[in-house]
């Protein structure tokens, strides 16, 4: 008995232990596995294990034609499917030096921005849900349905569209398109005010997000954290400003920057970005020129031999495509530099010495889409 009592007991504060978050965990937004080393409730180390949805899209691209690759890119970052398609289309058009009609550029820009709003709304819903506010889930998804209706009316699918083709669009937008988009903008302006009232000023939310997971600008650049997460740290990394494509050099919009670098600033960047996206759409929607919805393209697209890199600003950050072509109809190598994959790398760094409950908030504020990580 005496021996048992006198055993050296390690206090709980000193002892480190591991817990698994995921692959099936409601707050990892999919099938991400985080092995967290904890001391008490403090995160000491975090190891992301990805690959639970690695489908080998890059390998499949080597056997596919460029039109077929577009439908695969939909399934990478499914929340900004249009933007992914846009990247491939720009890559092919840039390599072939095809000039797409003005109308296509306008429509593409509008759809990209609508997609960005939809993505941010879904992110807002799930972010609120992760922090315990179930109301956000219902409100965010309710408003998102309006965007999906616009998409569905024009090209028949809600989430994964495969609407862009190299050189233009699959078919022209529906005649109702302009009216519906304008109605949506009017509707959404009111709803975003609601978002602010429900969550942005909420005292519980502020306590859980301010000063949590601080990412400095230098770290953001070194880790390559782009998109709203990078801009929340004050790094002006918007591809729409740096390398404008489509109509982004013709429209006026503000690059939303905040300098605190914590979860709250990443949150506010996204909320403000929704407003900026609506401003962009408003400038374009009335001036869509008439014309063809597609440039003339050969039925089989062969890129000239060489290497191409094309980046676009997806809803999560810089989506880059590096493509090596040998002149055939299939690429030799197609690499997707997906934003979530890179942004995940910083999670370990910024969640150290935080509470495990904050890890949920930090993970959600980076807006990770798991198939975008694993491809």
């Amino acid at each position, binding site marked *: 008995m005496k021996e048992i009592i006198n055993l050296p007991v390690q206090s709980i504060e000193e002892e480190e232990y591991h817990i698994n978050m995921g*692959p099936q965990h409601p707050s990892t937004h999919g*099938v991400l596995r985080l092995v967290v080393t904890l001391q008490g409730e403090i995160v000491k180390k975090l190891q992301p294990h990805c690959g639970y*949805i690695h*489908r080998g899209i890059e390998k*499949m691209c080597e056997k596919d034609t460029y039109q077929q690759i577009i439908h695969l890119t939909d399934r990478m970052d499914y929340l900004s499917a249009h933007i992914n398609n846009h990247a491939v289309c720009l890559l092919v058009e840039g390599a072939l030096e095809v000039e797409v009609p003005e109308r296509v550029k306008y429509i593409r820009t509008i759809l990209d921005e609508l997609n960005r709003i939809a993505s941010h709304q879904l992110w807002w819903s799930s972010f609120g849900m992760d922090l315990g506010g179930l109301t956000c889930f219902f409100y965010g998804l309710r408003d998102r349905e309006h965007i999906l209706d616009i998409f569905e009316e024009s090209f028949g699918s*809600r989430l994964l569209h495969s609407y862009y083709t190299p050189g233009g669009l699959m078919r022209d937008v529906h005649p109702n398109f302009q009216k519906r988009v304008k109605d949506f903008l009017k509707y959404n302006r009111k709803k975003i005010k609601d978002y602010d009232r429900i969550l942005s000023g909420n005292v519980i939310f502020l306590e859980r997000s301010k000063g949590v997971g601080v990412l400095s600008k230098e770290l953001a650049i070194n880790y390559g954290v782009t998109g709203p997460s990078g801009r929340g740290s004050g790094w002006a990394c918007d591809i729409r400003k740096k390398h404008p494509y489509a109509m982004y050099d013709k429209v006026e919009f503000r690059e939303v920057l905040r300098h605190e670098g914590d979860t709250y600033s990443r949150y506010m960047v996204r909320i403000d970005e929704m407003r900026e996206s609506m401003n962009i759409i408003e400038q374009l929607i009335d001036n869509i020129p008439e014309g063809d919805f597609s440039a003339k393209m050969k039925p089989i697209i062969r890129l000239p031999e060489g290497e191409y890199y094309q980046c676009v600003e997806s809803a999560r950050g810089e989506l880059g495509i590096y493509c090596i072509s040998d002149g055939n109809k299939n690429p030799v190598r197609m690499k997707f530099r997906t934003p979530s994959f890179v942004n995940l790398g910083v999670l370990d760094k910024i969640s150290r010495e935080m509470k495990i409950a904050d890890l949920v908030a930090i993970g959600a504020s980076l807006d990770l889409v798991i198939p975008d990580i694993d491809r």
Partner: protein
Amino acid sequence: MGVRIKNMKYADFQDNETLELFEKTGGNVMLTTIDDVIDWGRSNSIWPLTFATSCCGIEMMATGASRHDFARFGIEVYRASPRQADVIVVAGTIVNKMAPVLKRLYDQMSDPKYVIAMGACAVSGGPFFYNTYHVIRGVDHVVPVDVYIPGCPPRPEALLYGVMQLQRKIKLETIAKERKTKDDGRRRTIKL
């Protein structure tokens, strides 16, 4: 056949011939009444597991949200723990690395348990059937599937329709016989 879900008629549903294969064989009056009561309860309170791997998961969330409201079917709450869940909606691709996890989740669920394969990837591998090295071609290679919902991703209404199909299937169960273990005959791979 008296199987009615909401106000949908029997003839409104697809694949009735397969359903007739599952139909229970006889039973006395007492037992069928108990069966009916139990099946009524079971079919109207199937709680799903929060399990979404990719794009179809977003449509599943949309089904749970305001516009489509899963809860009208008694599929009230998403459970985060497999112990409390009755149905697992496999929404998305299952890859080699995920398959053991899915199998374990399925094993941890308590009987009676059901599986809905939602979307092309879960039904057959879908867009990732050919030329890839890490994808399970159809979730029925891992766990037995009750209802297949094709689509990429299926509309929320399509998911609700699939849920109604599952409810119809549950209503045919009987406690007199052990629920057919799904490995006999139904779990088969399809030659393509």
